[in-house]
């Protein structure tokens, strides 16, 4: 467990703050290094199209990672996000196929609502059923996927069945930034702000840091837990819509196995798996790093067979580096041990 995102930065910059700063800096540095190496070996990696592709890929993962980070900060976990994404994508796909005139905004809302319902269910089971989050969401991972299969069967919704407006939304840009990326940024900024500067956000950290103390401090633990899962679910639902818009082909298997990617992104981004620390910025950076790794490996012509192994190795590297930073923070704290004066 590590201490991150210390609030209350004072005017004077202490060595501690610098070390802490270095932590998200580490991911950024890794990212820069990766991009540089790749770009040197193949300059087209930095072409507009390529960057756009990476950003689009990141957008979906980042939205999921932000939601996951919110849950992980409360010392829980949501493994059902991949399945929820699938259900939402298929729901929205079917809806749009049958009602081609539907505005994109409605699609986004429907997706988020579908996800939100799943998330709330997770939250209620965790909180009021007293069942550990890992168990609940492992269960709903199976259940939600099963429901999607039941409903979808072998159906596949193809790009030509979806309204052109929706598919355009998946590719169109606003001042050359794709809408998907804008949505992800919006989600990121809003969530980041709430977590950092609002009481509700700080209470999530408190709950993750010590569930017991949170109860005694009069925090509405139940409501907050359900809310955290609801956010994670809703964002997974939203990601489902983005997924549908981006890929155009949706079947019951959409998003299978995503949960591990998302958890990996969050962990690489420095959110402690035992709650209480980390930030959504880190999680989003983790998502960007993982997506870039995927693209870079393809561009670097690294043997297909090595790719997964390298991703695994990099995850270990990232959390190892994170540990190092944490150890330095701990050392700093020890030196500043307080005394009664």
């Amino acid at each position, binding site marked *: 467990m590590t201490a991150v995102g210390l609030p209350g930065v004072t005017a004077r910059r202490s060595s501690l703050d610098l070390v802490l700063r270095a932590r998200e800096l580490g991911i950024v540095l890794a990212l820069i290094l990766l991009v540089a190496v790749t770009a040197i070996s193949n300059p087209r990696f930095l072409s507009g199209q390529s960057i756009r592709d990476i950003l689009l890929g990141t957008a979906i993962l980042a939205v999921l990672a932000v939601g996951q980070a919110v849950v992980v900060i409360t010392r829980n976990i949501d493994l059902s996000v991949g399945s929820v994404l699938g259900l939402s994508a298929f729901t929205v796909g079917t809806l749009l196929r049958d009602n081609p005139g539907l505005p994109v905004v409605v699609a986004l809302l429907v997706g988020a609502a579908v996800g939100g319902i799943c998330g709330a269910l997770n939250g209620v089971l965790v909180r009021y059923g007293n069942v550990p989050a890992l168990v609940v969401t492992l269960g709903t991972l199976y259940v939600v996927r099963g429901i999607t299969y039941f409903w979808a069967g072998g159906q596949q919704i193809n790009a030509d069945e979806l309204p052109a407006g929706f598919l355009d939304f998946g590719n169109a840009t606003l001042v050359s930034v794709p809408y998907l990326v804008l949505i992800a940024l919006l989600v990121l900024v809003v969530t980041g702000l709430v977590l950092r500067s609002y009481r509700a956000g700080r209470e999530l950290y408190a709950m993750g840091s010590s569930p017991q103390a949170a109860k005694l401090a009069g925090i509405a633990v139940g409501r907050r837990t359900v809310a955290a899962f609801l956010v994670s679910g809703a964002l997974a639902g939203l990601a489902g819509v983005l997924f549908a818009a981006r*890929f155009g082909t949706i079947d019951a*298997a959409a998003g299978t196995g995503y949960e591990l990617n998302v958890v990996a992104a969050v962990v690489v981004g420095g959110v402690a798996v035992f709650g209480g620390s980390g930030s959504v910025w880190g999680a989003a950076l983790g998502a960007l790093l993982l997506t870039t790794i995927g693209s870079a490996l*393809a561009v670097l012509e690294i043997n297909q067979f090595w790719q997964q192994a390298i991703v695994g190795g990099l995850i270990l590297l990232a959390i190892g580096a994170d540990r190092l930073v944490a150890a330095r923070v701990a050392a700093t704290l020890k030196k500043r041990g307080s005394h009664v004066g």
Partner: protein
Amino acid sequence: GGTTKESTAGDATAAPSSSTSAAADPNAPLKEGLKIAYLPKQLNNPYTDVEVGGGKVAVGELKGEYKLVGPNDASASSQVSYINTLIQQQQDVIVVAANDPNAVCPSLNQARKAGIKVVTFDSDAAKTCRDAFINQATTQGIGESLVKMASELAGGSGEIAVLSATPNATNQNSWIEVMKTELAKPANAKLKLVKIAYGNDDDQKSFTEAQGLLQTYPNLKVIVSPTTVGIAAASRYVSSSNYKGKVAITGLGLPNQMRKFVKDGTVKKFALWNPADIGYLAAYAGGALASGQITGAEGEKFKAGKLGDYTVGASGEIVLGPPTEFTAANIDQFDF
């Protein structure tokens, strides 16, 4: 010392487990009420659905009992569990597309020992553990036709790349082998195969791989994707990127999935056999086996409903016929 691959090489081939030694009776009546079960690689896959859809029609014509089972994860181990279940349920015919030619073998042989006829389709199991194999087209034929289409689209010269399914997909790999031999011929000397990428038959992975190919090989002229998932993903990527019009896509695809891209000009031509016919033929082959009309030996003949007469080829292979090429001109005549 010890048991090595070489030391056992002898007995592996020396174990023909053909349980059907009875002679074929071409005039035996087709039995009614046969229980015919389909076990595709994976359920809920559009291509598979079309295949088994054809099977269902044929089983209806045969007045048999149709059943469809299968895993969601395209793994051999889950298929084995299903084969075991089918044995318990005492089916008459199992029509299976093997996820691994060897892994399903012991179970299939157990099924055959229990008197169940085994027909493979789409993707063969080892020859020793099935009675017949419905081959959609000869491997040679598909490989050649892929190279032919690529050559036409590239104008006879330039870089081409392959976007395949999983690295260990039996079909795709054998077609790619044929492609390589074809490309080695002098006629195709100017075509250069720069890369074989794998999209794992996963829509998204294929999409990302297509991206990677185009970034890495700026001079790429054609992407050949011998899998329906891959060709659709690649077409979708190209049609929405600024590579549209510069890079051609071809390969094996489903007309319904590809219609949009053929219409918008991303794809000029691609090929496929009619998957429904594969399932259809498999049912008739199974019926013929279960009724004793054929045993799976070379040269035996049987009738396959609307598809006409078929002859069993070498080592139990039954070839459906040549693939169809789809272009803007004819695509609207097909609905699958």
